[in-house]
Protein backbone atom coordinates (compact mmCIF):
# COMPACT_ATOMS: atom_id res chain seq x y z
CA UNK A 1 0.00 0.00 0.00
CA UNK A 2 1.24 3.48 -0.90
CA UNK A 3 2.14 6.03 1.75
CA UNK A 4 0.61 9.50 1.65
CA UNK A 5 3.83 11.10 0.37
CA UNK A 6 3.95 8.56 -2.50
CA UNK A 7 0.28 9.27 -3.29
CA UNK A 8 1.02 13.01 -3.52
CA UNK A 9 4.07 12.35 -5.69
CA UNK A 10 2.01 10.23 -8.13
CA UNK A 11 -0.99 12.60 -8.07
CA UNK A 12 1.28 15.39 -9.35
CA UNK A 13 1.71 13.42 -12.57
CA UNK A 14 -2.02 13.13 -13.19
CA UNK A 15 -3.14 15.28 -16.12
CA UNK A 16 -6.62 16.53 -17.04
CA UNK A 17 -8.48 15.12 -20.04
CA UNK A 18 -7.90 17.02 -23.29
CA UNK A 19 -9.44 20.49 -23.20
CA UNK A 20 -12.86 20.52 -24.88
CA UNK A 21 -11.65 23.21 -27.30
CA UNK A 22 -15.03 24.94 -27.33
CA UNK A 23 -14.37 27.18 -24.31
CA UNK A 24 -13.69 30.23 -26.49
CA UNK A 25 -16.93 30.02 -28.47
CA UNK A 26 -19.10 29.20 -25.46
CA UNK A 27 -17.49 31.89 -23.28
CA UNK A 28 -17.94 34.59 -25.95
CA UNK A 29 -21.56 33.46 -26.44
CA UNK A 30 -22.15 33.60 -22.66
CA UNK A 31 -20.66 37.10 -22.43
CA UNK A 32 -22.86 38.25 -25.31
CA UNK A 33 -25.94 36.86 -23.51
CA UNK A 34 -24.88 38.66 -20.32
CA UNK A 35 -24.48 41.93 -22.23
CA UNK A 36 -27.93 41.56 -23.83
CA UNK A 37 -29.44 40.84 -20.40
CA UNK A 38 -27.67 43.85 -18.84
CA UNK A 39 -28.95 46.02 -21.70
CA UNK A 40 -32.50 44.84 -21.12
CA UNK A 41 -32.27 45.49 -17.37
CA UNK A 42 -30.94 49.00 -18.07
CA UNK A 43 -33.70 49.66 -20.60
CA UNK A 44 -36.32 48.40 -18.14
CA UNK A 45 -34.95 50.64 -15.38
CA UNK A 46 -35.06 53.66 -17.76
CA UNK A 47 -38.66 52.87 -18.76
CA UNK A 48 -39.73 52.60 -15.11
CA UNK A 49 -38.03 55.94 -14.23
CA UNK A 50 -39.69 57.74 -17.18
CA UNK A 51 -43.06 56.20 -16.26
CA UNK A 52 -42.74 57.35 -12.66
CA UNK A 53 -41.74 60.87 -13.74
CA UNK A 54 -44.78 61.10 -16.09
CA UNK A 55 -47.07 59.82 -13.32
CA UNK A 56 -45.73 62.39 -10.88
CA UNK A 57 -46.27 65.18 -13.43
CA UNK A 58 -49.87 64.03 -14.10
CA UNK A 59 -50.62 63.91 -10.38
CA UNK A 60 -49.24 67.40 -9.90
CA UNK A 61 -51.42 68.73 -12.73
CA UNK A 62 -54.51 66.95 -11.35
CA UNK A 63 -54.04 68.27 -7.80
CA UNK A 64 -53.23 71.77 -9.10
CA UNK A 65 -51.02 74.45 -7.50
CA UNK A 66 -51.42 75.11 -3.81
CA UNK A 67 -53.74 78.18 -3.38
CA UNK A 68 -53.81 80.28 -0.16
CA UNK A 69 -56.99 80.04 1.94
CA UNK A 70 -58.80 83.50 1.68
CA UNK A 71 -60.25 83.29 5.22
CA UNK A 72 -56.84 82.62 6.71
CA UNK A 73 -55.36 85.55 4.74
CA UNK A 74 -58.09 87.85 6.05
CA UNK A 75 -57.49 86.76 9.64
CA UNK A 76 -53.77 87.35 9.31
CA UNK A 77 -54.33 90.86 7.88
CA UNK A 78 -56.75 91.71 10.74
CA UNK A 79 -54.25 90.41 13.27
CA UNK A 80 -51.61 92.79 11.82
CA UNK A 81 -53.93 95.78 12.16
CA UNK A 82 -54.83 95.10 15.79
CA UNK A 83 -53.06 97.43 18.21
Amino acid sequence: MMTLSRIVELARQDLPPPAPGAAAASTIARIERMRVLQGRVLLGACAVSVGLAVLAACLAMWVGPATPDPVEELLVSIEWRLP
Partner: protein
Amino acid sequence: MDDIARAKRGDPAALSRIISGHEAFVGRILWRFTRDRNDWESLVQDTFVEMCSSIRGFRSESSLERWLARIATRVGYRFWRQRSRDRSRVSQLSDDALRALAASQAPVEAAQLLHELLGRIDPPERLALVLVYIEGLSMSEAAARAGWSAGGMKMRVHRARQRLAEVARSCGIEPGDLQ
Protein backbone atom coordinates in the same frame (compact mmCIF):
# COMPACT_ATOMS: atom_id res chain seq x y z
CA MET B 1 -1.63 46.18 -31.24
CA ASP B 2 -1.47 42.87 -29.29
CA ASP B 3 -4.40 40.63 -28.37
CA ILE B 4 -4.59 41.90 -24.78
CA ALA B 5 -4.95 45.51 -25.91
CA ARG B 6 -7.57 44.45 -28.48
CA ALA B 7 -9.41 42.35 -25.89
CA LYS B 8 -9.48 45.35 -23.53
CA ARG B 9 -11.37 47.20 -26.26
CA GLY B 10 -13.87 44.34 -26.44
CA ASP B 11 -12.65 42.65 -29.64
CA PRO B 12 -14.28 39.15 -29.56
CA ALA B 13 -11.70 37.66 -31.94
CA ALA B 14 -8.84 38.72 -29.66
CA LEU B 15 -10.65 37.37 -26.58
CA SER B 16 -11.25 34.13 -28.42
CA ARG B 17 -7.56 33.80 -29.30
CA ILE B 18 -6.52 34.44 -25.67
CA ILE B 19 -9.01 31.84 -24.41
CA SER B 20 -7.93 29.21 -26.95
CA GLY B 21 -4.27 29.82 -26.12
CA HIS B 22 -4.77 29.42 -22.36
CA GLU B 23 -7.52 26.81 -22.18
CA ALA B 24 -5.14 23.92 -21.42
CA PHE B 25 -3.26 25.97 -18.80
CA VAL B 26 -6.48 26.95 -16.96
CA GLY B 27 -7.82 23.39 -17.36
CA ARG B 28 -4.70 21.95 -15.64
CA ILE B 29 -5.18 24.24 -12.63
CA LEU B 30 -8.89 23.51 -12.29
CA TRP B 31 -8.41 19.73 -12.61
CA ARG B 32 -7.05 19.91 -9.03
CA PHE B 33 -10.40 21.29 -7.86
CA THR B 34 -12.76 18.77 -9.42
CA ARG B 35 -12.47 15.46 -11.22
CA ASP B 36 -15.96 15.65 -12.63
CA ARG B 37 -15.73 16.51 -16.32
CA ASN B 38 -18.92 18.60 -16.43
CA ASP B 39 -17.97 20.63 -13.36
CA TRP B 40 -14.46 21.04 -14.73
CA GLU B 41 -15.66 22.40 -18.07
CA SER B 42 -18.04 24.72 -16.30
CA LEU B 43 -15.25 26.03 -14.03
CA VAL B 44 -12.98 26.61 -17.03
CA GLN B 45 -15.75 28.65 -18.65
CA ASP B 46 -16.43 30.59 -15.42
CA THR B 47 -12.74 31.50 -15.25
CA PHE B 48 -12.75 32.89 -18.78
CA VAL B 49 -16.00 34.79 -18.19
CA GLU B 50 -14.36 36.43 -15.14
CA MET B 51 -11.28 37.12 -17.23
CA CYS B 52 -13.34 38.81 -19.95
CA SER B 53 -15.28 40.95 -17.52
CA SER B 54 -12.18 42.18 -15.69
CA ILE B 55 -9.60 42.32 -18.49
CA ARG B 56 -9.81 46.13 -18.64
CA GLY B 57 -8.27 46.21 -15.17
CA PHE B 58 -5.40 43.90 -16.16
CA ARG B 59 -2.04 45.69 -16.11
CA SER B 60 0.02 44.52 -19.04
CA GLU B 61 3.31 44.64 -17.15
CA SER B 62 2.29 41.59 -15.07
CA SER B 63 2.07 38.11 -16.60
CA LEU B 64 -1.26 37.11 -18.14
CA GLU B 65 -0.75 33.50 -17.01
CA ARG B 66 -0.14 34.52 -13.41
CA TRP B 67 -3.27 36.68 -13.48
CA LEU B 68 -5.33 33.88 -15.04
CA ALA B 69 -3.98 31.39 -12.48
CA ARG B 70 -5.21 33.66 -9.68
CA ILE B 71 -8.67 33.90 -11.27
CA ALA B 72 -8.84 30.11 -11.82
CA THR B 73 -7.78 29.48 -8.21
CA ARG B 74 -10.45 31.88 -6.96
CA VAL B 75 -13.11 30.19 -9.12
CA GLY B 76 -12.03 26.71 -7.96
CA TYR B 77 -11.92 27.74 -4.31
CA ARG B 78 -15.40 29.29 -4.56
CA PHE B 79 -16.62 25.99 -6.05
CA TRP B 80 -15.18 24.05 -3.10
CA ARG B 81 -16.79 26.39 -0.60
CA GLN B 82 -20.18 26.04 -2.31
CA ARG B 83 -19.81 22.28 -2.33
CA SER B 84 -18.79 22.12 1.32
CA ARG B 85 -21.93 24.11 2.25
CA ASP B 86 -24.03 21.68 0.22
CA ARG B 87 -23.09 18.47 2.06
CA SER B 88 -25.64 16.36 0.15
CA ARG B 89 -23.60 16.77 -3.03
CA VAL B 90 -20.32 15.55 -1.54
CA SER B 91 -19.76 11.97 -2.64
CA GLN B 92 -17.41 10.05 -0.42
CA LEU B 93 -15.94 6.67 -1.21
CA SER B 94 -15.90 4.04 1.51
CA ASP B 95 -12.65 3.40 3.40
CA ASP B 96 -12.37 0.03 1.62
CA ALA B 97 -12.58 1.73 -1.77
CA LEU B 98 -9.89 4.20 -0.66
CA ARG B 99 -7.59 1.37 0.44
CA ALA B 100 -8.15 -0.31 -2.93
CA LEU B 101 -7.06 2.89 -4.66
CA ALA B 102 -4.02 3.07 -2.35
CA ALA B 103 -2.96 -0.41 -3.49
CA SER B 104 -2.55 0.86 -7.06
CA GLN B 105 0.58 2.63 -8.32
CA ALA B 106 -1.05 4.60 -11.14
CA PRO B 107 -1.14 8.44 -11.14
CA VAL B 108 -4.87 8.49 -11.98
CA GLU B 109 -5.81 6.32 -8.98
CA ALA B 110 -3.42 8.24 -6.74
CA ALA B 111 -4.97 11.54 -7.82
CA GLN B 112 -8.46 10.13 -7.27
CA LEU B 113 -7.47 8.91 -3.81
CA LEU B 114 -5.85 12.23 -2.89
CA HIS B 115 -8.91 14.09 -4.14
CA GLU B 116 -11.12 11.96 -1.86
CA LEU B 117 -8.83 12.47 1.13
CA LEU B 118 -8.64 16.23 0.52
CA GLY B 119 -12.44 16.32 0.27
CA ARG B 120 -12.52 15.40 3.96
CA ILE B 121 -10.67 18.52 5.11
CA ASP B 122 -11.81 22.15 5.09
CA PRO B 123 -11.43 24.21 1.87
CA PRO B 124 -8.76 26.66 3.17
CA GLU B 125 -6.45 23.84 4.29
CA ARG B 126 -7.24 21.90 1.13
CA LEU B 127 -6.25 24.87 -1.03
CA ALA B 128 -2.99 25.31 0.89
CA LEU B 129 -2.06 21.67 0.26
CA VAL B 130 -3.01 21.74 -3.41
CA LEU B 131 -0.97 24.86 -4.10
CA VAL B 132 2.12 23.84 -2.16
CA TYR B 133 2.26 20.06 -2.57
CA ILE B 134 0.51 19.36 -5.86
CA GLU B 135 1.15 22.54 -7.85
CA GLY B 136 4.62 22.70 -6.27
CA LEU B 137 4.52 26.45 -5.55
CA SER B 138 6.72 28.08 -2.91
CA MET B 139 5.00 29.47 0.20
CA SER B 140 5.16 33.04 -1.11
CA GLU B 141 3.93 32.06 -4.60
CA ALA B 142 1.08 30.04 -3.08
CA ALA B 143 0.17 32.94 -0.80
CA ALA B 144 0.10 35.35 -3.76
CA ARG B 145 -2.01 32.91 -5.78
CA ALA B 146 -4.55 32.46 -2.98
CA GLY B 147 -4.53 36.14 -2.00
CA TRP B 148 -3.43 35.31 1.56
CA SER B 149 -0.45 36.54 3.59
CA ALA B 150 2.69 34.35 3.58
CA GLY B 151 2.28 33.78 7.34
CA GLY B 152 -1.34 32.73 6.87
CA MET B 153 -0.35 30.29 4.15
CA LYS B 154 2.41 28.75 6.29
CA MET B 155 0.00 28.28 9.17
CA ARG B 156 -2.65 26.69 6.91
CA VAL B 157 -0.11 24.33 5.32
CA HIS B 158 1.09 23.20 8.74
CA ARG B 159 -2.47 22.62 9.95
CA ALA B 160 -3.45 20.94 6.66
CA ARG B 161 -0.56 18.45 6.81
CA GLN B 162 -1.61 17.35 10.27
CA ARG B 163 -5.25 17.12 9.24
CA LEU B 164 -4.47 15.14 6.05
CA ALA B 165 -2.29 12.71 8.04
CA GLU B 166 -5.17 12.19 10.49
CA VAL B 167 -7.63 11.57 7.65
CA ALA B 168 -5.22 9.13 5.95
CA ARG B 169 -4.65 7.22 9.20
CA SER B 170 -8.38 6.97 9.82
CA CYS B 171 -8.72 5.29 6.41
CA GLY B 172 -5.86 2.89 7.14
CA ILE B 173 -3.28 4.69 4.93
CA GLU B 174 0.18 5.31 6.34
CA PRO B 175 0.96 9.10 6.19
CA GLY B 176 4.71 8.64 5.61
CA ASP B 177 6.81 11.80 5.61
CA LEU B 178 4.94 14.36 3.59
CA GLN B 179 7.65 16.90 2.72
